[in-house]
């Protein structure tokens, strides 16, 4: 039933016709067209849809539009007045409170309501008001600084509270105008005001809605799909099943494509896509899902590696015997001999958890076909190029006939690093019915699609000499892969390959098994494969140090990786300031005073880690071309094509530059740092540059935002493109300046001869001169990783990179010794990310990683019942840390310069997660006397371990 309601939205009277069951959120987004208000969970758990209703912030998803009839509604679009940002918005922009921006509108509405009611809230009052707004990117650090700025505003508008950041000025190796400066994000204002368009905000004329019906069971033979009742429903436009698609398999690792577009014969996990429905609206499409009749013969499911590898266990895929998807077997040096020669050898087992990236923005796709047969696909993806490649593969059309548009992306963390069933099905449905099709996952569907972190079952053994110097390490890991290969082959290799990059390990052995199970496929989550093994190794090393009476930071100093090292597994380490991160963190955290002196229930712990700055090789082999048209190529240790490519086009009047590169801004800030490097290379201000990174028709290929590659690889391409443009300007500038072409320098919008900054010509005048003579002034640049990366053993490519990051975290926390509840109070972190292009963005990555990964260590775990049914596919069962849970964080950057990186830069996004798990686990052990080696470290596990310890001690006391 439709009723007419009057909403006073941001002062505008809006008369809307709404369904009785329609939420205020949908009425605002789609009725009034104000898409700044976001839908991220739909059940009041996340706060992304917060609006101010008659003066109070509410979750608009939990208010019926009809109940708001006659009410005043304020949304993010109403905060700025006459184009001037509100205080909250301005503070969020300036203090780095915004990354992906998906939580930002809701966060700003909660903050605005608080400050209007209470202009001087305490820190606790701020946290209480914002605890219903989940943020997955920032770790709440920038948000708290923004709130402090609003509350403690000085006359000059600056924040009276000092940011807990190490000043960057100590890096003196180079001075730049733009690089190394914390300019606000180039997309911050769009995100602060609700102007930013995400895929779910895209509305095309004549657009309809699609949904995917997934398997209700974890494992079964799909006998029949009866779509007749659904097709007969009014408003349903098309249904496609496995019978309507060809046998093409797709996936991520080309050797392991194992996913059908829609299930053909079997279903392998709950949620496995079976059919797709298009209908005139989302409600109809979802209603039609109930009318699909499935005939499935249920098979026994295997739900963990042990079950899956047992004799006679049912096979998830016939092609993977014993459900072993991949087996890695690597040995470098002579591990057994080294153990024999070790002073101390220690072995422990560790268990990880199933982590889901949980970006705030749901995966969304909108597909439409141009009359010339070009697919136009809007996708919330980290990897537009791989989506283009895979769509070409599944649709059997050339890449040239596919245009990928990547609108603003609300976080990824690896969860959007592959082509999704939404990408594929929206394209297929759109083709079939000749209308644009939009598809969006619900929060539960996101969990069922999966691609989160592999749960790993690990045994680590380490041998050290009498000084704690590592002689050998052996790891055996079973990765619970879920039902499809996805990134899993690479994950299995990564799990082992990164261990020798942090410490000098002369003898190293790794046995890895990725096992298929009847759960959603696991993929590449932030830190790809490495965080759990790193957790295990860090815990083990700390255990060893404590048993030997060596300080845990000291044992790390004795083993720390050093610059210009070829590791035992042929990883080529360039710059390395790992030791500096250890020393600076220890100093800042007062480690020497605190470690070993804290009372029971208080703990301090250390953990370390680092990561690649971009994968050395492309995911697929050969050139950019549909796979079946290419000759199978033998792998050679060389990039066939450039992994990052950029074009800089100068406006005809010389006053602006458009930077085109297909690098995916997903919230991490790549648009901003690429703009900064472009500005620096051009010698003009970054506000003269507009970056266009979201459209494959405009921007050349960049492989995307995975493996922490964009700053280094995209940065090179961008600065080379800018230098190319400058080179074209040189003759004109030289003529005007009367100097040699080589002597021409560009800075601050001026050009001058080297050494003479007094006699200048305007940069834009030189550009105009070029245009007058030659037409468009365009520079191009590209980047290929160095040839020859990696050794010659099987899997040697995984873990190769032009550069590696390093970092140290110290965690301080309290444990309730009765209940086991942990309160994380403080983190101190120093990172070697090379030269920081934008320090605020670096700190934002570190803070976000610390909070995300602390949550991963303490409370996150995707759970399934004994039938493989998902138990917590929502944000009240799967717990992300709130602003109240987030610790205070000190983030510092050590002085470092990577000669292989643009302007000396390396990565920060993934490496920053790696120290966290071990630091938290160690701090808990330090507080309680018990090590929990099984993630997540819940209060219950801590409690049980403490009881066990006491019981053991009592037995020991009684027997002695």
């Amino acid at each position, binding site marked *: 039933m439709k*009723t007419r309601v009057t909403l006073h939205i941001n002062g505008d009277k809006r008369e809307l016709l709404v*369904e*009785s*069951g*329609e*939420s205020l*959120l*949908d009425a605002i*987004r*789609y009725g009034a067209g104000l898409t700044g208000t976001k*839908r991220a969970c*739909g*059940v*009041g758990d996340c*706060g992304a849809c*917060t609006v101010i*209703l008659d003066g*109070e*912030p*509410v*979750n608009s998803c*939990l*208010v*019926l539009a*009809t*109940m708001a009839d006659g009410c005043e509604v304020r949304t993010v679009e109403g905060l700025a007045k006459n184009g001037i940002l509100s205080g909250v918005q301005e503070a969020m922009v300036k203090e780095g409170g915004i990354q992906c921006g998906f939580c930002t509108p809701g966060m700003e509405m*909660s903050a605005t309501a608080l400050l209007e009611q209470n202009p001087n809230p305490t820190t606790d009052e701020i*946290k*209480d*008001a*914002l*605890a*219903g*707004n989940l943020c997955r990117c920032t770790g709440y650090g920038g948000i708290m600084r923004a709130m402090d700025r609003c509350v403690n505003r000085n006359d000059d508008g600056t924040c009276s509270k000092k940011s807990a950041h190490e000043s960057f000025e100590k890096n003196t190796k180079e001075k730049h105008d733009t690089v190394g400066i914390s300019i606000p994000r180039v997309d911050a204002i769009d995100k602060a005001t609700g102007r930013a368009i995400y895929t779910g905000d895209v*509305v095309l004329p004549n657009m309809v*809605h699609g949904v995917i019906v997934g398997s209700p069971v974890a494992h079964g033979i799909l006998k029949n799909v009866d779509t007749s009742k659904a097709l007969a429903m009014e408003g349903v436009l098309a249904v496609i099943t496995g019978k309507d698609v060809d046998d093409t398999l797709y996936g991520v690792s080309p050797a392991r494509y194992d996913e059908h577009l829609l299930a053909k014969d079997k279903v392998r996990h709950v949620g496995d896509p079976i059919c797709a429905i298009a209908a005139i*609206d*989302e*409600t109809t499409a*979802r*209603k039609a899902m109930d009318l699909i009749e499935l005939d499935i013969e249920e098979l026994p499911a295997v739900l963990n590696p042990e079950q899956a590898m047992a004799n006679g266990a049912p096979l998830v895929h016939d092609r993977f015997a014993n459900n072993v998807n991949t087996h890695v077997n690597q040995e470098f040096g002579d591990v057994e001999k080294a153990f024999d020669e070790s002073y101390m050898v220690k072995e422990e087992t560790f268990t990880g958890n199933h982590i889901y990236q949980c970006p705030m923005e749901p995966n969304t796709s909108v597909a439409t076909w141009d009359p010339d047969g070009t697919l136009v696909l809007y996708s919330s993806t980290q990897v537009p190029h791989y989506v283009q490649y895979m769509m070409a593969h599944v649709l059997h059309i050339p890449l040239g006939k596919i245009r990928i548009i990547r609108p603003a992306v609300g976080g990824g963390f690896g969860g959007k690093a592959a082509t999704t069933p939404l990408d594929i099905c929206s394209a297929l449905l759109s083709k079939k019915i000749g209308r644009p099709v*939009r598809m969006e996952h619900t929060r539960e569907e996101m969990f069922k699609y999966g691609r989160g972190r592999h749960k790993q079952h690990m045994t680590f053994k380490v041998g050290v000499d009498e000084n704690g110097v590592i002689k050998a390490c052996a790891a055996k890991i079973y990765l619970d892969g879920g039902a499809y290969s996805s990134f899993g082959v690479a994950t299995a290799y990564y799990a082992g390959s990164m261990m020798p990059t942090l410490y000098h390990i002369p003898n190293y052995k790794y046995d890895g098994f990725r096992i298929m199970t009847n759960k959603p496929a696991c993929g590449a989550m932030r830190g790809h494969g490495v965080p759990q093994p790193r957790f295990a190794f860090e815990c083990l090393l700390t255990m060893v140090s404590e048993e030997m009476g060596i300080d845990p930071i000291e044992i790390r100093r004795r083993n720390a990786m050093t610059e210009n090292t070829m590791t035992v597994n042929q990883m080529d380490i360039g710059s390395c300031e790992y030791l500096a991160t250890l020393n600076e963190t220890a100093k800042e955290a007062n480690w020497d005073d605190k470690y070993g002196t804290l009372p029971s229930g208080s703990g301090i712990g250390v953990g370390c880690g680092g990561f690649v700055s971009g994968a050395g090789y492309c995911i697929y082999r050969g050139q950019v071309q549909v796979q079946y048209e290419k000759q199978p190529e033998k792998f050679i240790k060389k990039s066939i094509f450039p992994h990052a490519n950029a074009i800089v086009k100068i406006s005809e009047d010389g006053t602006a530059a458009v930077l085109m590169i297909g690098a995916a801004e997903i919230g991490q800030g790549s648009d901003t740092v690429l703009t900064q490097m472009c500005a620096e290379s051009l010698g003009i201000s970054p506000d003269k540059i507009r970056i266009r990174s979201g459209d494959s028709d405009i921007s050349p290929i960049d492989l995307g935002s995975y493996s922490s590659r964009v700053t280094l690889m995209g940065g090179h391409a961008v600065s080379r493109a800018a230098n190319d443009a400058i080179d074209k300007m040189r003759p004109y500038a030289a003529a005007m300046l009367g100097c040699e072409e080589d002597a021409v320098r560009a800075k601050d919008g001026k050009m001058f001869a080297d050494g003479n900054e007094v006699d200048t010509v305007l940069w834009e005048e030189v550009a105009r001169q070029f245009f007058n003579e030659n037409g468009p002034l365009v520079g191009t640049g590209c980047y290929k990783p160095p040839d020859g990366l990696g050794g010659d053993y099987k899997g040697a490519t995984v873990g190769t990179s032009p550069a590696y990051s390093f970092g140290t975290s110290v965690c301080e926390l309290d444990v309730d010794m009765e*209940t086991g*509840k942990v*309160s994380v109070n403080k983190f101190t972190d120093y990172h070697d990310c090379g030269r920081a292009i934008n320090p605020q963005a670096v700190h934002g990555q570190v803070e976000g990683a610390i909070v995300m990964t602390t949550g991963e260590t303490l*409370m996150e775990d995707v*759970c399934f019942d004994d039938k493989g049914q998902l*138990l*917590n596919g929502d944000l*009240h069962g799967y*717990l992300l*840390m*709130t*602003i*109240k*849970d987030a610790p205070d964080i000190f983030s510092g950057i050590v002085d470092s310069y990577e000669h292989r990186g643009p302007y000396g830069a390396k990565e920060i996004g993934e490496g920053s997660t790696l120290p966290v798990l071990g630091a938290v686990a160690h701090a808990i052990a330090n507080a309680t006397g018990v090590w929990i080696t099984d993630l997540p470290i*819940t*209060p*219950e596990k801590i*409690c049980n371990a403490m009881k066990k310890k006491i019981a053991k001690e009592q037995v020991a006391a009684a027997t002695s």
Partner: protein
Amino acid sequence: MIGTCLGGLTVYKPTTLEDAFAILIEHGSDAAILAGGTDLLVDLRVQRRDEHHLVSLANITELRGVTETENGVSIGAATTLNDLLHSDVIQQNYPAIIEATQVMGSNQIRNTGTIGGNIASAVPSADLPPVLLVLGAEVVLASKDGERTVPICEFFQGVRKTCVAIGEIVKSISLPNPSGSAVYERFDLRQGNSLAVAAVAANITMDGDTVADAKVALGAVAPTPEIVEGVNAILCGNTCNDNLVHEVAQLATQASNPITDLRGSAQYRRELVGILTTRAIKRSVEAEQ
């Protein structure tokens, strides 16, 4: 249209209780009462409930607000959780209500969620019921046949089940004048916006150094929130020492009947009951002194 709306719903916005009763009777078990909607709309969306006729209480003004009465206070069922937090009389006389309310959900949830909904949903982990139990609250139920008053301890009948009959509406919650010092202890897995894993409310009244009256109630550890029987027998007339508190904690542990779920095992929850009971009693006694 994009977005998913709940299909086949009719929403009624009566302005009087009488009109509300009529609609409820007409649609019987296919009708549901819409207060804050923070439970109901979620339940409808995840298909835990399937009523098609929603009767909103929003326009029945008499249902909202805290009124002081001769014997205590009367809290309208549609009073929001943030109304409670901001109520002077609640802050002054019933601080345990504040303790339980401020840990509930998020600020957004507290702006829409109501006290009536918190009890009428009868979710085992609800925060207010244990406090209402130790405060001796009564629930006023209204129907076309008039009103009846039910002690809160008789209100809950199972998981998501109450004594509210078809055609009845929770009208208000009455609290007697405060006696003793009620407190609320809760264990949860996250600092903000989380659900109780185990919860204990205690209300001790001291007469000098001895306990004059003691009530302990449990939440989230049984199908319904419940008063622990036999606490007075242990504490009443005695000074409150560690041994007696321990005895009560054991009694509470035995009285609990928790389930194992993602938030904790039954065994762990029982342990939490003991820990929280001890803390609650000690804090209540301290507040009395």
